[in-house]
């Protein structure tokens, strides 16, 4: 697993208060991890902060699963 994936999962566990083993790459933030739309805004902010990337609103809207987040960060981080 990549370094980014580890960090993304750690942020998700911390922000959503879910068990680490539930945070698989296929997990949907809303359907599987109990997040609501505001939680996703907060997660996106935390990703931006951690990885020094900008995630514009239109890109953030497409992030539905843990894998979506990891892929976006891998492709865009500096």
């Amino acid at each position, binding site marked *: 697993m990549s370094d980014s994936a580890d960090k993304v999962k750690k942020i998700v566990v911390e922000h959503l208060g879910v068990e680490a083993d539930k945070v698989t790459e296929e997990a949907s933030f809303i359907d599987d991890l109990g997040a609501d739309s*505001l939680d996703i805004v907060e997660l996106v902010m935390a990703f931006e902060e951690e990885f020094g990337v900008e995630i514009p609103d239109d890109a953030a809207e497409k992030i539905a699963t843990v894998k979506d987040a990891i892929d976006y960060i891998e492709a865009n981080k500096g």
Partner: protein
Amino acid sequence: MRRVVVTGLGLVTPLGGDVETSWKNLLAGKSGAGTITRFDTTDQKCTIACEVKPADHEYGFDPMKRVDHKVQRQVDPFIVYGIDAAGQALEDAGLSDMTDEQKLRAGCSIGSGIGGLPGIESESLLLAEKGPGRVSPHFVHGRLINLISGQVSIKYGLMGPNHAVVTACSTGAHSIGDAARMIRDDDADIMLAGGAESTICPIGIAGFAQARALNMSSNDAPEKASRPYDKDRDGFVMGEGAGVVVLEEYEHAKARGAKIYAEVVGYGLSGDAYHVTAPHPEGFGAFRSMEMALKKAGMTPADIDYINAHGTSTMADTIELGAVKRLFGNEIANVSMSSTKSAIGHLLGGAGAVESIFCILAIRDQIVPPTLNLDNPDEGTEGVDLVPHTAKKRAVKAALNNSFGFGGTNASLIVKAVED
């Protein structure tokens, strides 16, 4: 007329994360005061407070017991304290699992004096440092005063009146009084009522210090700083925490065989119409608030055994005492009056609720909590039992709580042992 009784209690205080621990420590004469641990107090004029202790402390508070981890991250501590105290009260009342029918007739009236000041402060700093894109999406609803009532109603499915009082340091007493009226007026059968506060943060301490309200002379002796009625008192010590009661319509409580602590029999309210921070010098508003509560209860001063005073450890203590003396006349000789702010500090919007719970426990256990640090009683205190230093066993059938707030707002609540 529909009668209103108390069937559940919940407390988070600087002396304990629950009712029995807080009460035991209060009666033992312990102080919740100490040097502020929450933030760096460099350059602050006041460096002490009565903080709610962490979970690993002998009488700490564990937020993980009742408050969802995610909610804890999103909201200010006053909301966490409020949710927990409400949960305790529901469990105590045997109402944590209500039917849908009960939930439709159950509401919340849990307020706060100031609300989420620590979060307003930290998010404002973040805004200035990193820009608007870093402000939390939970900023607004994690700080709003009515969000204890909101969170509690969502957590427990309470669909009755959802209300939140904001009257500075009389919030807790007004919250209970207003909620009792809602039950009396048949808006609900069950109300969770009380108040919470947590403003031990740099701007909270600095703001009250600049208003010359806080004790600033006892930073090296925190436990001695809150000394109501003492000659050397010079400002309050900030506390934090929450108090929530379950109020219930009497027949409803009896029908389900609930444990009944006391009846809410009197509620008085008034305005000083005088000054934003100073009370009326003759305690005119305080007098009328107590007088109204007695009248509503159909009682006279002779019926009151214990007064939990507003008594913040400021110059205003003797103004309140003067009003009590005028109202009580010769009956002053038969009442005990103490300020538990000497032990837990001033919980601001939580004070009236926490102190009303102490009144209820005084009735339950037939003992009144002490006024700590009353070494040299001020002039005008002669002939009044201010319960110095140690708790006192005595008959307590009815008790009165006074809570007064900035803006000249006053509330008095009377609770009484239940009689059929």
